[in-house]
C-alpha cells in the first residue's frame, strides 16, 4: 500500500528553463497541486487544454485534513475518471446523529432515497484524495506537473479581455528563477494564497473566536459508520464533539475547546489522550494518528476574477469545517471553470464567459458562507440569548419534530442551484421537479443500449448535451429529429441523450452520436419532472441551463449561445 503522506516528487527542469527557449504563452497554468488545483487541471486536460500545474512543494497533504467528500464531488470525480477509486477506499455514509449530553436528539439521513450511484458522502483522508487525483493527472499527456516551482511574481500583460492578454509568472526553482507566460492562470494556491498577495488583493469576512482540536485516532471500534455530533456531552462538558469514521480504522474526533484554550499545550499528547479516553472509555486501545488545533474564518474575495487570473477553492473563499463546504465547493469551482476556459481557448465563447465563473461561484460561495456561519453560530453561540435559543431548540427537539429543523450541527455540502445565472434561459413552460435551470443534474439508474445497468450522469458532462425524454419513442417526430440532426452539426455540437421508457423501440433517424438510454425504473423522468418530449440543455459541468416541454431548434440554439455568452440570436 502506498503511503501517500511520505511520497515526494522530483523536481525537473522544464522547457522554459532551457537557454534561448522561445517565449511561448501557455494556454492555462494552474497554481497549487492541492485537491482543487489537481481536479481543475485534470478537468482542463480532459477537455483538450494544454495545462501546466505548478506547486511550490513536492509532497501531498500531511495529515488527514479534509475528510468528507460529498456526492457532488464524487460525481465530479466520476467524470474526471477517478470516482471509483475514491469510493472503493472511502467510507460511505448517509446518516448523521445529534446528541445532547448523552441523549439522542435526532437522526438525519442525507440520502433517504435509493437509485443514486454515489452516497451522500464518503470519508477519506485528504492525502488519498490528492494521491488518486495525482495518479489520474499523471495519465494525461497534456498535463505537465512542475514540483518545486514557486510563484514569486505575477504581472498582467496585454489588453484586458483581448486575445493578447496574459499573465507573466515569475517562478523560483532549485535551479533559479524563470518566467512562465500563461493566457490564463488558475490560482488554487490555498487559503493563504501567495498569488492573491502578489496581486495586492484581499479576502474579507468574519474570524470566529473559538478553537477546535482534531484528534485522528487509530483503533478497532464498533461505532457505526455515521456522523455523530454531541452538544455538551458528559465526557466534554459545555462544548461540542464530532466523531467520524475514516478508512484504515482511523477515527476523526473534533473537540470544541473554546477561545481561551492554549493551542500549544492542547496539542500535546498529555492533554489530547485524556480527552479521547473520556470519550472512548478506559478499555479501548488507540493511538494518535494526527493532531491539529484550528480556528477558522468565513472569508471571500470580492471578485474571483482579476484580469486573467481566476481564483478557485480556499484562495477565493473560506468556510468553517462544519458542513464540509470547503474542498467540496472548491471542486465545484473547478468544474465550473474548466469548461469555460476550454470554450474560450477554442474560440467558441468570448472572454466574458469567464466573468460568469466569478459571478456563479461568488453566488455559491455566499451560500456556503451563509450556511457555514449559521452552523458556527449555533455550535458556538455568540451571546447569552443566542445560547438560550440554542438550548431551547435542543430541548424541544427531543419531543417535537419541528425543532429538529433548527438544530444546526452543520448543513452538509450540497451544490448551489445557480438560479440567478445569466447563462440560464428562463423557463417558458411550466415544470415540476428540481431540475430547474442552474441545478446540477440528478442521477438515475438506467439501461444502456446493450441492456447494461448504468447511471445517467455517466453520459452527461464534458460537452453540451441535449437530454430528450421520449417516453414511448413517440415524441421523436420528424420535426424533432430534424432539430436534433441540425443541432448535432452546430459549431459547438450537442451530444444527445435520448431517454426511452422501458421497452419502447429505438426511433430511426437519430444523429449518429446519440446515446439511447432506458428509464426502466421511471426515476429519471420523475427526478427531472419530464413529460413526453421534454428537452433539457445540459452544460459540460452537468448543470441544467434550459428546458422545454418540446425541442425547438431555434430555441435550443439561442439557449446554447446564451450559455456561452455569444451575442446575437438565431
Amino acid at each position, binding site marked *: 500500500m502506498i503511503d501517500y503522506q511520505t511520497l515526494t516528487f522530483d523536481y525537473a527542469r522544464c522547457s522554459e528553463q532551457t537557454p534561448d527557449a522561445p517565449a511561448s504563452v501557455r494556454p492555462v497554468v494552474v497554481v497549487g497541486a492541492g485537491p482543487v488545483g489537481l481536479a481543475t487541471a485534470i478537468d482542463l486536460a480532459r477537455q483538450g487544454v494544454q495545462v501546466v500545474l505548478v506547486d511550490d512543494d513536492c509532497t501531498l497533504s500531511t495529515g488527514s485534513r479534509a475528510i468528507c467528500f460529498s456526492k457532488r464531488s464524487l460525481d465530479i470525480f466520476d467524470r474526471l475518471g477517478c470516482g471509483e477509486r475514491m469510493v472503493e477506499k472511502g467510507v460511505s455514509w448517509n446518516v448523521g446523529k445529534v446528541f445532547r449530553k448523552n441523549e439522542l436528539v435526532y437522526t438525519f439521513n442525507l440520502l433517504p432515497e435509493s437509485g443514486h450511484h454515489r452516497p451522500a458522502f464518503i470519508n477519506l483522508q485528504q492525502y488519498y484524495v490528492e494521491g488518486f487525483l495525482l495518479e489520474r493527472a499523471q495519465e494525461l499527456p497534456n498535463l505537465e506537473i512542475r514540483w518545486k516551482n514557486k510563484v514569486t511574481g505575477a504581472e498582467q500583460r496585454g489588453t484586458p479581455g483581448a486575445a493578447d492578454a496574459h499573465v507573466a509568472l515569475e517562478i523560483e526553482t532549485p535551479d533559479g528563477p524563470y518566467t512562465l507566460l500563461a493566457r490564463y492562470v488558475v490560482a488554487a494556491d490555498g487559503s493563504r494564497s501567495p498569488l492573491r498577495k502578489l496581486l495586492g488583493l484581499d479576502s474579507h469576512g468574519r474570524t470566529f473566536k473559538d478553537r477546535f482540536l482534531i484528534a485522528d485516532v487509530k483503533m478497532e471500534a464498533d461505532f457505526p459508520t455515521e456522523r455523530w455530533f454531541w452538544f455538551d456531552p458528559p465526557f466534554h462538558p459545555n462544548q461540542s464533539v464530532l466523531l467520524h469514521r475514516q478508512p484504515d480504522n482511523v477515527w476523526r474526533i473534533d473537540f470544541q475547546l473554546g477561545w481561551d484554550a492554549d493551542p500549544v499545550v492542547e496539542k500535546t499528547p498529555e492533554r489530547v489522550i485524556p480527552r479521547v479516553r473520556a470519550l472512548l472509555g478506559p478499555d479501548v486501545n488507540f493511538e494518535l494518528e494526527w493532531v491539529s488545533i484550528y480556528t477558522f474564518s468565513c472569508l471571500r474575495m470580492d471578485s474571483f476574477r482579476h484580469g486573467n487570473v481566476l481564483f478557485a477553492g480556499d484562495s477565493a473563499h473560506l468556510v468553517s469545517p462544519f458542513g464540509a463546504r470547503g474542498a467540496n465547493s472548491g471542486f465545484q469551482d473547478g468544474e465550473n471553470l474548466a469548461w469555460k476556459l476550454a470554450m474560450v481557448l477554442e474560440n467558441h465563447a468570448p472572454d466574458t464567459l469567464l466573468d460568469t465563473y466569478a459571478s456563479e461561484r461568488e453566488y455559491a460561495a455566499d451560500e456556503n458562507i451563509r450556511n457555514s456561519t449559521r452552523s458556527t453560530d449555533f455550535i458556538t453561540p455568540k451571546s447569552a*440569548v443566542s445560547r*438560550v*435559543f440554542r*438550548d*431551547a*431548540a435542543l*430541548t*424541544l427537539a427531543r419531543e*417535537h419534530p*419541528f*425543532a429538529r429543523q*433548527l438544530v444546526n450541527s452543520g448543513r452538509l455540502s450540497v451544490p448551489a442551484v445557480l438560479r440567478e445565472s445569466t447563462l440560464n434561459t428562463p423557463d417558458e413552460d411550466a415544470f415540476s421537479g428540481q431540475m430547474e435551470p442552474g441545478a446540477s443534474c440528478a442521477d438515475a439508474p438506467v439501461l444502456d443500449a446493450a441492456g447494461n445497468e448504468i447511471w445517467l450522469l455517466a453520459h452527461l458532462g464534458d460537452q453540451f448535451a441535449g437530454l430528450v425524454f421520449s417516453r414511448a419513442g413517440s415524441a421523436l417526430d420528424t420535426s424533432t429529429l430534424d432539430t436534433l440532426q441540425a443541432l448535432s452539426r452546430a459549431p459547438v455540437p450537442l451530444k444527445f441523450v435520448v431517454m426511452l421508457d422501458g421497452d419502447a423501440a429505438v426511433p430511426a433517424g437519430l444523429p449518429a452520436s446519440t446515446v439511447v438510454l432506458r428509464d426502466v425504473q421511471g426515476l429519471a423522468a420523475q427526478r427531472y419532472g419530464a413529460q413526453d418530449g421534454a428537452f433539457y440543455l445540459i452544460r459540460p459541468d452537468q448543470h441544467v441551463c434550459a428546458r422545454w416541454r418540446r425541442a425547438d431548434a431555434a430555441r435550443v440554439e439561442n439557449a446554447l449561445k446564451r450559455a456561452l455568452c455569444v451575442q446575437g440570436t438565431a
Partner: protein
Amino acid sequence: MLNTQPNLARPDDFYEALIDMHRDLDEAQSQSVNAQLILLLANHVGEHETLMQAIRFARAGVSEPESHGATGKLAA
C-alpha cells in the same frame, strides 16, 4: 400577514397563564421557557413573512421608546 387586531379567545386567561408559566423559575429557567414558547409559536405560524413582521414589530417596540424617550416623557 401578521394579525395585530384582537384575536385571543381568552386574553386575560392567556396573560395569567403566561405569567404563571414563570412561577418559581430562576432567571435562566425563565429565559429558557420564553425561548421555547417563541419557537413553538413560531413553528405554528410557519409563514416566513408573517414571522419577519412580528420580529420587526417586536424590535421596534424596544428601539423606538429609546429614541423618543425624552420627548415622550416631557409630553406626558
